[in-house]
């Protein structure tokens, strides 16, 4: 069975600052990151859709002990954002001092840009991720 939206297609779009997801033609749920079946009803009757990349911070952490190869990024903030279309997405938060982030960030509105992890000897190539910043 063919993928409606593969990792490669999702990744290439994100590198162009476009966030692609899947809208279910049966139940209307938006699925992102992509899966082969709707995250709600498991239908495979899906359309590729472009998402706003806007939403609210659900939770965060600032990472001080980093994986091998990520030393130059330390410290960095990871956020999980609930997109306006419903799904949760993981990314980094920029435009703020990582050491100054507190739980007050939770619930704040953010918009999406992107950054690319160039990959390391263990990964299967480069991988983009959302780079969020506070709205307004």
């Amino acid at each position, binding site marked *: 069975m063919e993928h409606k939206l593969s990792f490669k297609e999702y990744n290439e779009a994100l590198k162009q600052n476009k966030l692609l997801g899947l809208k279910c033609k049966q139940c209307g749920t938006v699925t992102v*990151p992509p899966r082969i079946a709707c995250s709600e009803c498991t239908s495979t009757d899906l359309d590729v859709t472009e998402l706003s990349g806007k939403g609210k911070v659900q939770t965060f952490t*600032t990472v001080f002990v980093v994986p091998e190869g990520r030393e130059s990024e330390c410290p960095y903030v990871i956020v999980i954002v609930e997109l306006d279309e419903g799904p949760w997405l993981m990314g980094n938060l920029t435009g703020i001092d990582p050491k100054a982030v507190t739980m007050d960030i939770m619930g704040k509105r953010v918009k999406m840009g992107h950054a690319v992890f160039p990959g390391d000897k263990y990964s299967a190539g480069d991988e983009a991720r959302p780079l969020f910043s506070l709205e307004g």
Partner: protein
Amino acid sequence: MRKVAVVGVGMTKFSGKQDKTAVELFAEAAMDAINESNLKPKDIQALFMGNALGDFAEGQAQPQAFAADYIGASNIPANKYENACASSSAAFRDAFMWVASGFYDIVMAGGAETAAKMGTPLATRTFAMASDSRYEFPSGITFPGVFALITHLYAKKYGIPLEKLKHQMALVSVNSHYYGARNPKAQFQKEITVDDVLKGFMVCQPLQLYDCCPFSDGGSAVILASEEKAKKLTNKPVYVVGVGQASAGNLLSQKEYLPRLRSRELAAEQAYKMAGLSPKDIDVIELHDCFSTATIVALDSLGFFEYGKSGEAVEKGETKLGGKIPVNPSGGLKSKGHPIGATGTAQIYEIVKQLRGECGERQVEGAKTGMTDTLGGDGGTLCNIILKRGW
């Protein structure tokens, strides 16, 4: 389905970096388990071994084949289980099912890991491989990072001020070290204070050093036998009365449940139902305290306390010996250590020793029924096992 018992257990001392390979560590534990079971290596019909990161730590894939040969159980079927930190619990559950089905009579389950050998940067990288490499790792997620995200969600969902939650978490670590100091097999045999925890360096906000389990080297092994065989081998068979296992996708896919882990609730429900037991029937639990918050989240989901109230229960001493549910008398992952492939069957080791009354200063008096809880990844694998005295 036949009744199945654990008839022998073994584990190495858990430690930081040392010179033995995973196969050597496994073999030490395995021979202790074989000797305790009054068996010979050739009596073992199959091996189910947990090992998650041997490829990276030692350049060693399929250690289970070499382990079987090394201990003298040559040529038996040997399978490796890679379920991240829950590897040997998944191995144990499958071993149980094969014996219960009647296909085998005597099977070894266990695991080994040399995670400390990798050093912190590589270990942090390879542990993160158990998160989603496409949609989580590009953001730089780490395992403390996962539980840091969950900690903030937990504080917000249940309206617990972070400072108060951090104090409860610190008490979890203090308890772990208290018991670890009484376990000769523990990596850290040293008590700590709440102050020590709150002064530790920040790993992933809000988790500090002592909120986190260490990287560890170690091995563990147990032998499962059919009831008929078990009765001939030991007068203290420990029966496997309930097992459960469930999986989940990446953290993002768990949005409807977090900070609860759905895979735990499903696995625990299976284990309780199979055993015909409920949380109030459990006398002692070894649960997956990879991070201090993880204990609090687990106690909620396993049904020991109301959601959001497990931290208060820790404050009241209800998770200590003599409390409502003694938690991790071994010292847990935090203090005993967490050589990930060995962790699940090391939890079984502790529960079997507790049910046999062999734990000295850290003994839960009169324990008849015990439980284990092992988490792999960010909810990707969850196993629960319930064990009961057979005498």
